[in-house]
């Protein structure tokens, strides 16, 4: 639709017309704000916990354990140089396997959601799939943080949902 609108504007005499082809789906999935009745406050983005620990694929698990102990988190995401999520480590995966790398121990390709995902739909999914949290990534796979079921439900209640 936007290419037709851009062409129409040119025929109406506008000389500097740009077409943001990827549109608001792209904008929202990058974690950028949206206004409106179902704007950002009804989406995952504002409620994501961003301090979740990360590690490199080659890091040894005893170092990852230290990170978790210091941070107070019980999960760690294995990321590449661009912060793209490669896998996830929980305490159960780490326990007793301190001599291997994060890449060897991780659960690869964890399911993720975008910052623009609607809270109602996420809560319903988490209950259905018995999940207590979900990693949030941008559309190009970069880690934003973790959304917990508790935070999502609390936010929905605050919104009157």
């Amino acid at each position, binding site marked *: *639709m*936007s290419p037709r*609108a851009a062409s129409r504007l*040119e025929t*109406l005499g506008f000389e500097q017309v*740009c077409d943001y082809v990827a*549109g*608001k789906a792209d904008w929202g999935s990058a974690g950028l*704000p949206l*206004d409106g009745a179902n704007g950002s406050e009804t989406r995952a983005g504002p409620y994501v916990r961003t301090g979740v620990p990360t590690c490199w694929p080659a890091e040894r698990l005893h170092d990852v354990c230290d990170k978790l102990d210091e941070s107070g988190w019980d999960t760690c995401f294995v990321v590449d140089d661009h912060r793209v999520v490669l896998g996830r480590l929980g305490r159960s995966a780490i326990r007793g396997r301190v001599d291997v790398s994060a890449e060897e121990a991780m659960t690869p390709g964890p399911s993720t959601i975008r910052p623009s995902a609607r809270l109602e739909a996420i809560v319903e999914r988490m209950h259905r799939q018995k999940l207590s949290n979900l990693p949030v990534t941008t559309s190009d796979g970069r880690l934003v943080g973790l959304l917990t079921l508790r935070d999502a439900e609390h936010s929905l209640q605050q919104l009157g949902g």
Partner: protein
Amino acid sequence: MPTQIERDEVQRLLADEQAQLIEVLPHAEYEDEHLPGAINIPLKELGRGSIDQLERARRVIVYCYDSQ
């Protein structure tokens, strides 16, 4: 020929050139969610009457939901 741009360029043009941002989806979809600062001129209403609110000297960026 309109220039196709990506998210980074949208942000730059909004910040540096105060580009005019137009959502061309129907009103209900705009009311549901839109980019901050965007105005709504649905494609079906895009004509000589509806463009009076635009400045011709300033760049215009149009968008809809996605590329589909």
